[in-house]
C-alpha cells in the first residue's frame, strides 16, 4: 500500500510538470475568426483579412447591463495583414492581435477578384491543411472587388456579417459551395469550379446609429461621414477554369447553372401570362430535378437534359381562367420555356465565352462511358464545346395557392 502510494506520487510528480498543458488555450486567449478574406497585392503577396469576434459585444451576464444599451456597437474587428503565404500572414497578424488566431469557427472564406484571376490554389491550401480550420463546412465565395471590403460590411439582422453572409450563401440564389465541394470540383476533370459571387451594393441609409461603413466608394477619411449603407448581396456566379477565375454568370444564368447542376431546391420563376404577355405569373418551385443523359457514338458527344419541376402558382397579375386546362398547360409551357432559356443562356456563356464545363457534364459522361473517358479527360473542355446539348423542361404545376381563379377577375 505504501509502496503503491509512493509510486503514485512519483508518477504524478513526473507527469504534472510535464503536463504543461501544451494545447491548452483559455477562451480569453483566443481571437475567434469568423470570416477570412484573401486578396493579392500587385507584388504577388497575399493579403489576409480576418473578421474577429469581439466577445465583449456578445453580452455576458454583466456585459449586457453595461453595453446592452449601446445599439449598433461593433461586434467584430476586421484586420488585414500582408504576407507571402496565408500561414505567413497569420503569424504576422498574431503580433497585431496579441491573441492566438483561432480558425475553427470561421464561417466563410471570401476570395478577392484579383487573386481568383491569378489562381485560387495558392489561397486555399492552408484552409484544408490546418487541422484548426473546419475546412469541410466553410462557405467559399468570390468577392467582386476586394475581399476585405466584404468583411468590413455590417449586417442589419445577424450579429456579425460573417454569419449573415453564411446564411445568404446557404439560402440565396447561387450555387452554395462548401470547401469540400470546391476541392471536389478542383480534383475532378469532368467539371470546373463555380463559386457564388458576392458584392457590396448600396442600399440606402444605415439603420443603426454610429454604424460606420466601409464601402468601396468611400475613401478612408470619409468613412464616418458616409450615409449610405452597403449591403452584401449575392449577385451571381464566378466561373473558373481549373483554379483561375475566367468570368461571371449573371442572375438568370446562375439559375440555369443550378438547374443543370441539379441543385435547384427552391426559388420562383416568373413568366409572362399566355393571354396578356405584359402581365406576369409567378411559379414557386417546390421540387426541381434534372437528369443528364450523355450519348457518344465514337465521334460525337451529345447530352439530353431533362429538367423536371413541380411548382405552385402563387401570383397572377393577369386574369385568365386558371380552371381552363388549356390555359393552365400554356402557363406550364411558358414556365418550361423560361427554364430552358435560362439553362441555354448559361450553357452558351460557358461554352462560347469561357470555354469550360462548369456543369459536371464531364462527370456524367465519365459515369456512362468509362472506357472512352481516359482519352477525353484531358481535353474535356474542348469536347464539351463541341457537344450538343438538348434541353427539355417539364413543368407540373400542382397547386395554385389558396384560391383558384382571381377573385377580382369579374
Amino acid at each position, binding site marked *: 500500500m505504501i*509502496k503503491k502510494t*509512493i*509510486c503514485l506520487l*512519483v*508518477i504524478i510528480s*513526473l507527469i504534472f510538470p*510535464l503536463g504543461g498543458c501544451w494545447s491548452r488555450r483559455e477562451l480569453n486567449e483566443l481571437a475567434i475568426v469568423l470570416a477570412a478574406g484573401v486578396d493579392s497585392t500587385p507584388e504577388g503577396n497575399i493579403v489576409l483579412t480576418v473578421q474577429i469576434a469581439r466577445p465583449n459585444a456578445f453580452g455576458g451576464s454583466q456585459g449586457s447591463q453595461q453595453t446592452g444599451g449601446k445599439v449598433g456597437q461593433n461586434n467584430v474587428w476586421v484586420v488585414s495583414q500582408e504576407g507571402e503565404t496565408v500561414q505567413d500572414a497569420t503569424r504576422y497578424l498574431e503580433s497585431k492581435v496579441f491573441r492566438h488566431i483561432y480558425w475553427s469557427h470561421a464561417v466563410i472564406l471570401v476570395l478577392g477578384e484579383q487573386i481568383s484571376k491569378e489562381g485560387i490554389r495558392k489561397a486555399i491550401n492552408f484552409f484544408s491543411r490546418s487541422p484548426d480550420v473546419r475546412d469541410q463546412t466553410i462557405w467559399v465565395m468570390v468577392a467582386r472587388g476586394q475581399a476585405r471590403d466584404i468583411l468590413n460590411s455590417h449586417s442589419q439582422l445577424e450579429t456579425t456579417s460573417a454569419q449573415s453572409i453564411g446564411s445568404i450563401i446557404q439560402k440565396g440564389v447561387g450555387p452554395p459551395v462548401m470547401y469540400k465541394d470546391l476541392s471536389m470540383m478542383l480534383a475532378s476533370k469532368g467539371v470546373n469550379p463555380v463559386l457564388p459571387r458576392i458584392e457590396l451594393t448600396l442600399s440606402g441609409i444605415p439603420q443603426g446609429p454610429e454604424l460606420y461603413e466601409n464601402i468601396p466608394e468611400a475613401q478612408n477619411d470619409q468613412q464616418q461621414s458616409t450615409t449610405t449603407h452597403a449591403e452584401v448581396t449575392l449577385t451571381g456566379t464566378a466561373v473558373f477554369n481549373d483554379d483561375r477565375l475566367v468570368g461571371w454568370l449573371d442572375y438568370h444564368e446562375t439559375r440555369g447553372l443550378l438547374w443543370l447542376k441539379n441543385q435547384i431546391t427552391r426559388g420562383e420563376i416568373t413568366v409572362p401570362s399566355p393571354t396578356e404577355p405584359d402581365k406576369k405569373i409567378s411559379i414557386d418551385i417546390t421540387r426541381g430535378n434534372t437528369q443528364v443523359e450523355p450519348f457518344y457514338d465514337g465521334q460525337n458527344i451529345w447530352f439530353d437534359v431533362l429538367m423536371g419541376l413541380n411548382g405552385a402558382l402563387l401570383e397572377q397579375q393577369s386574369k385568365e381562367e386558371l380552371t381552363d386546362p388549356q390555359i393552365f398547360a400554356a402557363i406550364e409551357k411558358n414556365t418550361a420555356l423560361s427554364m430552358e432559356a435560362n439553362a441555354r443562356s448559361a450553357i452558351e456563356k460557358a461554352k462560347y465565352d469561357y470555354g469550360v464545363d462548369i456543369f459536371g457534364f464531364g462527370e456524367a459522361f465519365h459515369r456512362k462511358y468509362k472506357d472512352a473517358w481516359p482519352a477525353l479527360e484531358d481535353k474535356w473542355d474542348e469536347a464539351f464545346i463541341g457537344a450538343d446539348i438538348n434541353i427539355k423542361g417539364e413543368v407540373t404545376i400542382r397547386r395554385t395557392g389558396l384560391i383558384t381563379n382571381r377573385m377580382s377577375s369579374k
Partner: protein
Amino acid sequence: MVFPIIMAFLVIILLEVPGLVSKKMWRELTAFAALLIIGMALSITHTLGVMIPNPNKYIEILFKPLVEWLSK
C-alpha cells in the same frame, strides 16, 4: 529529458521487483531485468538523439519488389 526517464524506470523497478523477490520468482526477475534493460537502452539512446536503425526500413528492403508493385 533523461532524468524523467530514469525516474520512470525507478518507478517500474520499485513496482515490480520487491514482489518478485519476496515470491522468489528468480526466473521472472531475470526476464524482467533483461526486457527492462533493452527498453532502457532503446529509450535512453533515442532520447539522447542517437539514430537507432528503423526496423521497418529493413523490412521494406526485404520486401522491395512487392512494395514497389503495391505502391505503383
